């Protein structure tokens, strides 16, 4: 893991930034998101992929790509969370003043 992180630092920072933007937007975006069922399925898919990665069942390059994808996805989620919280904090601070 530390090796993957240090070797792909640039790409992971990119993922975090992408996530940050997406999180930033998501707080004020109107319209519906994914349905609950879809969300469950996506979560289950993510869990399955993480399990596959931890169990080392995917061989060779595909295994490496899976790990890389998951770690980028994790960074994306972290970025989203930070972005969303920050945006929420900014929005909730400016509202009383308005």
């Amino acid at each position, binding site marked *: 893991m530390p090796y*993957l992180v240090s070797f792909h630092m640039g790409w992971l920072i990119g993922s975090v930034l*992408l996530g940050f933007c997406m999180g930033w937007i*998501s707080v004020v975006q109107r319209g519906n998101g994914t349905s609950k069922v879809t969300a469950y399925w996506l979560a289950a898919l993510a869990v399955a992929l993480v399990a596959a990665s931890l169990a*080392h069942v995917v061989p060779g390059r595909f295994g490496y790509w899976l790990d*890389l*994808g998951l770690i980028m996805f994790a960074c994306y989620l972290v970025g989203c969370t930070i972005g969303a919280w920050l945006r929420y904090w900014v929005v909730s601070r400016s509202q009383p003043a308005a």
Partner: protein
Amino acid sequence: MQKLFRWASKWWPGLIPLAVMWGFAAWNNTLPVEADLSARSSAALKDTVLDKTRIAVDGRDVSLAAEAFSEEGRRDAVTTVELVPGVRLVDDRTRLVPEAKPFVWNAERDVVRVTLSGSAPLPSMKARLTEVARKEVGGVEVADQMGLARGAPARFEAAATLLLDQIGKLKDGKITITDTQVNLSGMARDLGGREAIAAALKNLPEGFSIAANEIKAPPYIFQAYKDPVAATVTLTGYVPDNNVHAAIATSASRKFFTEKVVDNLKASIGAPSSFNTAVVAALGALSRLSTGTLVVSDREVKLSGDALYEGAANDIRAGLGKDFPKNWQYKPEITVKPAAGPVDGSVCQQLFTELLNKGKIRFATRRADIDPDSAGILDHLIETALRCPTTNIEVAGHTDADGEDSFNQALSEKRAQAVIDYLVKAGLPASRFTAIGYGATQPVAGNDTDDGKAQNRRIEFLVR
């Protein structure tokens, strides 16, 4: 938390550019990651002893193929690669180096190179043995054809190193270790080399033994070359010790009365028995040739060259064998020098005088027995006498002034007659010669010094 889920449900559009980024990242980094992990794995294995190591990286999975020299070494190698940061899985394709039974190692020397073959237990030892061989033989090429195998006996390296130290003493040959048995064959480079190797083998490490030592000593060679143009006799090769050396040098200077003796002999052990007797006899035969080569190789004597006349050739061919000790072989290749043209009496006299000025006919002390060392000068005198067949020759004997006059008179007559007998035996007609003894009555030098006396003891040839 509720809010977080609500926001999260709107995060999915970002997954599309994320997937694109992922694709690019995978595209860009797969080969660098593989190269990096391959380099890290190789670096990690640098200190492990393995043979035929091959590292292939697929993604982050390393396939390690290698031959290890022990089970422990094999496990260690795999663990080492597993611990390399970034490596996900190790495909263990290592195996143990095959075991050699019996464990055979060879060192072979020929004219141009030293070849090391068979098995060595470790790559480092292989390199060390090659280095030892290289040091031992100097500039000679060392070919390393050793394979690697397990199963070497204990203290193998010490034994192999000791044996390699001997390879410099061999001209050609082969040294083999089969398990703990050592076989040696070949030819030592120098006299004494065989003995030196045998002595060194006593220090073989414990457990090793000599199955066969068939190292031969090089032939013990003595050579003499008589060159009439340069007027030299060159002695080369070996003599057993300084005493024999001195004896041979003295004998040579007496036998070769017209030639300068160039002495290039070296003392060395390993001479066959009766070497001195045989060489002195052979040098006597060489002194009778006008040009010739003598080669004494172990117990074989080869003499080739030109005798001065037919009788001498026959005598040398037939006679010399008798002078040699038993077990010696004598191989004469004697031809006869073309007879020189006839000359008249005055030239003959001049030639006789020149010859007798250069050398002397020697006799046993106070006796009329001709010293065998004088065979050379007598042959030259006979050859000269043959060139003026119509002349009569007076052979005059002289003594120094020591002893009674009557004894000296009789001795001088007997010595002159002994010379004539020798000439007649060689085929000259007796009627051409007259023996005269002058005792001490015609000295050519003072009789008060040893040198003067030696000059006065002489035989003269006078053409009448």
